[in-house]
């Protein structure tokens, strides 16, 4: 059996996942980053993307896939913690609504008044894309 590391996924309103993981892959601002147990201390900023993890559930390894908003990932030798604004499971995503949000954000970005607003719209676009990728509509 592969070694595991305690893994927590936390949003401001709840703890989405808490358990043992063999592998955690998150999208940092620099690209995808995979964390295995006993990783050296590491702290990264995350951008909206699909978070994947191989986790232990009821003794078996299962795949956890979530669309996550921006946040942070902290890896320590003895634990991995991911803090995100929001996390969506497959069944939480409303595909039609997300496609609409994506179109709106893209439209808004074209006429964004300042760079900060454009960045916010980009985050909304990334988030919508992540949700669509999670549900296989991308």
């Amino acid at each position, binding site marked *: 059996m592969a070694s595991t590391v305690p893994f927590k996924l936390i949003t401001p*309103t709840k703890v989405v996942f808490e358990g043992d993981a063999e592998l955690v892959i998150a999208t940092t601002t620099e690209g995808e980053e995979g964390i295995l147990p006993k990783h050296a*201390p590491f*702290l*990264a900023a995350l951008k909206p993307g699909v978070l994947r993890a191989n986790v232990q559930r009821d003794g078996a390894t299962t795949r956890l896939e979530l669309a996550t908003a921006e946040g942070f990932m902290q890896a320590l030798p003895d634990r991995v913690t991911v803090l995100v*604004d929001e996390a969506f499971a497959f069944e939480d995503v409303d595909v039609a609504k997300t496609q609409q949000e994506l179109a709106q954000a893209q439209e808004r970005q074209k006429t964004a008044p300042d760079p*900060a607003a454009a960045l916010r719209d980009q985050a909304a676009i990334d988030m919508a894309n992540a949700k669509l990728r999670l549900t296989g509509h991308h």
Partner: protein
Amino acid sequence: MASVKDLRERIRSLKNTQQITKAMKQVAAAKIRRAEMAQKQARPYADTLSEMLRDLMASVGTVDHPFMKTGNASAPQGVILMTADKGLAGAFNSNIIRAGEIYARANPSVTWYTVGIKARNFVRRSGSPDHQTWALNALAKIESAREVARRVTDDFVQGKIAGITLISPKLVSMLSQKPETRALVPITRTDIVGAADAHATPKGAVEFSPSPEAVLSRLLPKYLEFTIFSAMLETDAAFFAAQLVAMNNATDNAGKLIDELTIQMNNARQAAITKELLEIVGGAEALNG
């Protein structure tokens, strides 16, 4: 002395009032449980966030972030005044508003930002009808908190305000809620590192992606957002606690009044009966005599 009929009317209306206050008390008790649950669910995020900030602060020497610099000293002070949306909670909202007034008197000029309808009404009445305002319970609280944090920090970075102060209720206990005034921005090192030193664990070298400064510049706004969010959760919990106490008192007082009036009514009824008896006896005496 009031007639039996008047007293009976008053007792009946008091009983109706008592029924309403009793119902509101039970609703507040149920809602306070939910508000406390929300607070509890936010705690893991708070703990992890401050842990990350501490690690960061330990590994970056000097911090060059606008939130940690002193603002434009000639600009007015920015104040976030946070109350509940509704009343019927004793002196809960007016205590916070009074803390706001005291703060405003101590500072030459103040720019208001309000969260909660009661705070909004106060600031509108006191002469800034077009300040920025949010309801406490309009959207999801985290959305409003993000919005508030973004507006105040934008104004701060642009030099429109000298700093950001938050006045919000603190839930001391179920029976006691006190307004609390604290400075949010500029963020000082001790805000983040200070209290935590007791159980700080050295973790050695930490690697940051993309860089400590870049992570910090994302963490600080999140930290502010979350501080405002948890203040909103606390306002909610404190409001229901205050409402519970106020409605409990109102129910008790109505009960006391009902008891008093019932005695008065019985007295009045007895007096009327005695009077009637006397009249009958008097009449009979007169006929016999």
